[in-house]
């Protein structure tokens, strides 16, 4: 019985060992930094890293959906920031946190729908549409908050989201849960298969009778939904909302997470769970540089180099295969 499971797994690993590189990177970075900074490998910091990566990881799932159909959503982080603000304002003014959370998801999904409609039904270019949407949502965020932080959120909201199970905050479980569910969705449902097909060859997909436009629209809506989920977690983690949450560097972290996790920006290749691994790697870099006392801007430099090294290594291995 065991052999029947282990054998395919071994075959998978032998042919897909490229997938293991992010893990290897995470391991190596951890060891090196751990030797320099004693606290780095402490339980508290490791949990902190997981917690910090949760919102990026969840948005990376959404980005993966859009990457898989051959698109991109540059507005995903600004979208997250915008609905955080909306949700936070509603809660501050006394709305039930549960309903506020639903509204956050709804607002983000609506923004995703506009993106998706423009891309699939109006044939607009994803890069341009979502870049414009990034301006719109980021601008609106600053405008409605007047550059201030929205605070005074109900404790019930913050406490519920940040509940600890076995000492690990809930957002980590939510991230892993969403990663697994969305990977199952993308790998074993008809919808998921269609998403891969559209990203691999959109003409052939159309001729095969797949509702291509709907599938693309759906991917952008999903990206919006995940942005909304990210908004809930981020708002709770920071116990506030502000326009800086969705600043443009965040979307780069999200996109890099997916790419480092092996999701192809050309469509058709990758899985959400690997994008989460990518998010862990990206967060790990930020966190470790912070622990080393490196300046934020120099951290960006390091991050950029690590990402490009990683992708170069990945390309080199693929070439050899």
């Amino acid at each position: 019985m065991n052999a029947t499971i282990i054998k395919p797994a071994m075959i998978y690993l032998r042919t897909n060992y490229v997938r293991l590189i992010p893990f290897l990177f995470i391991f190596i970075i951890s060891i090196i930094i751990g030797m320099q900074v004693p606290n780095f490998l402490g339980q508290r910091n490791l949990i902190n890293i997981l917690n910090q990566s949760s919102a990026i990881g969840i948005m990376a799932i959404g980005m993966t959906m859009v990457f898989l159909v051959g698109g991109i959503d540059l507005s995903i982080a600004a979208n997250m920031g915008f609905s955080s603000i909306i949700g936070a304002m509603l809660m501050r003014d006394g709305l039930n946190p549960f309903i506020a959370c639903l509204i956050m998801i709804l607002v983000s999904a609506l923004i995703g729908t506009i993106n998706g409609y423009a891309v699939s039904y109006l044939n607009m270019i994803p890069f341009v549409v979502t870049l414009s949407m990034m301006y719109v949502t980021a601008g609106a965020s600053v405008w409605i908050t007047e550059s201030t932080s929205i605070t005074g959120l109900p404790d019930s909201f913050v406490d519920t989201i940040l509940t600890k199970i076995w000492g690990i905050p809930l957002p980590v479980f939510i991230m892993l849960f969403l990663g697994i569910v969305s990977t199952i969705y993308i790998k074993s449902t008809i919808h998921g298969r269609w998403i891969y097909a559209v990203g691999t060859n959109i003409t052939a997909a159309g001729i095969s009778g797949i509702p291509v436009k709907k599938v693309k629209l759906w991917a952008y809506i999903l990206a919006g939904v995940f942005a909304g989920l990210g908004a809930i977690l981020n708002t709770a983690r920071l116990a506030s909302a502000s326009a800086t949450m969705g600043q443009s560097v965040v979307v780069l972290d999200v996109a890099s997470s997916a790419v480092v996790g092996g999701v192809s920006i050309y469509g058709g290749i990758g899985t959400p769970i690997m994008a989460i691994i990518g998010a862990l790697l990206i967060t790990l870099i930020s966190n470790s540089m912070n622990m080393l006392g490196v300046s934020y801007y120099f951290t960006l430099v390091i991050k950029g180099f690590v990402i490009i090294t990683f992708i170069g290594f990945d390309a080199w291995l693929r070439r050899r295969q």
Partner: protein
Amino acid sequence: MKSPFLSLKDISKRFTGVQALDHVSMDIGKGEVVALIGANGAGKSTLMNILGGIVQKDSGTIWINGKQVEIKSPIDAFANGIAFVHQELTSLNTLPVVDNLMLTSYPNTLGIIHDRQSQKQVSEIFTRLGIELNYNEKMGNLSPGDQQLVEISRALLQDSRIVIFDEPTSSLSKYEKDRLFKIIDGLKNNGVTVIYITHLLDELQGLCERIVILRNGQVVNLGNLADFPHKRIVNEMIGEESERVVRQNKSINKSEPVLRVNNLYCRGVLKNINFDLYQGEILGVWGLMGSGRTELLRSLVGLDPISSGELFYRQSGKMVKISPLELNKHVGFVTEDRRNEGLFQTMSVKINLTIASLTNLFGKVKPFINSRKEEQLTTETIRKLQIKVTSANQTVGTLSGGNQQKVVIGRWLLRDPDIFFLDEPIKGIDVGSKAEIKKIIGLLSEQGKSILLVSSEIDELLGFCDRYIVMCRGQLTREYMGNATTSQLMDAATSVRSANREVSV
């Protein structure tokens, strides 16, 4: 034979799970034209890609002019005087001919190009080959045949001693073919060794002295062309007696069609198309290039917009008016462009087979794909169509053309539509697969499926269809029954063409 100029010894190459080449050896003399023949997937392209430095061999040696050489990249191949004229042209369409030719070898001083000298070199090469082309013309404005001449010229700029042609005639007109053969003759007389890959056997006469036949990665036979009559070559290629698929024309029940097309117009492409398609019928659509054959199929299923006209489709015994997009749901469309419109190249055979019928197969129960049922359906289809794969999880892009085509057809078998549109289903695949695919088409019609079959290979259509409609300049010009002859079809497709031209001018 004199001492060989090019020797390949025991060349082997293995791709994941497939022995592409198995100890292939051959000697080729200086100034000799050798035809490399084999069915799709026999290993011709792999062998030549090794020689051209595009693929690395696993074992074996290559000798040129008595010296062993290592070819690890296309640059190595150039250095050894090997030039490769690819089947698919790789030119830069927005640049002039002269730049396409000189791109890697501009005469220059400190990077500044000497235009006049470049042009001089190009016209010299054109004169040598007897080519008349304007070297300032943009590459994209040339016909495929002329573009190919530029590719050949580029090969000769490097002063090549060995030139490989990979199915060079597949997109050429008769005139362009003759011109190409003359150039190959000229190369031969200048002592250049030519390797000519093809599966069009009619071309060989008068072009090559010797042939090498590959099958399943092995050399099955080689020798003087004179010793190999057409039929023997075909048998060696496919390893068994080939048979021409001729169907007994069935009597078709013509009381009620499955599909009726009334006054179909497509702006600038199709004019006043009327025809019926009956159950179990194979209706051949014949016409020359640009006659609107493909456009007809595409517009019927909504891939191209129609300007006016009506479609009727039989649903529960009644002819119901239907829109092209609705009709699409009842049609299995095998397009001409397999690579870009048919296959999901990087995905597995299994996924390619089931992708069009996921909702029919699994959707009624729940949104999940039942992987065991999928596996089983895939295995059945692979067996039924005799698709050669190592496993259902093999990437479809690694299959040969014939097997890829079977995958596309298999996809629609799982969907089980009433009507099949087959656009050039046997183009560009080997003789053996052609016969197999025609058998499959025959079986479909026996099961009561209606088939609209477009082919530009008139000999392949003959004796196979129940009825023919002939297209010319976007119009249906004539209809023939299954016993039509080549000259009848040819006349219908060409004569009206000229008549029409007179009217329109």
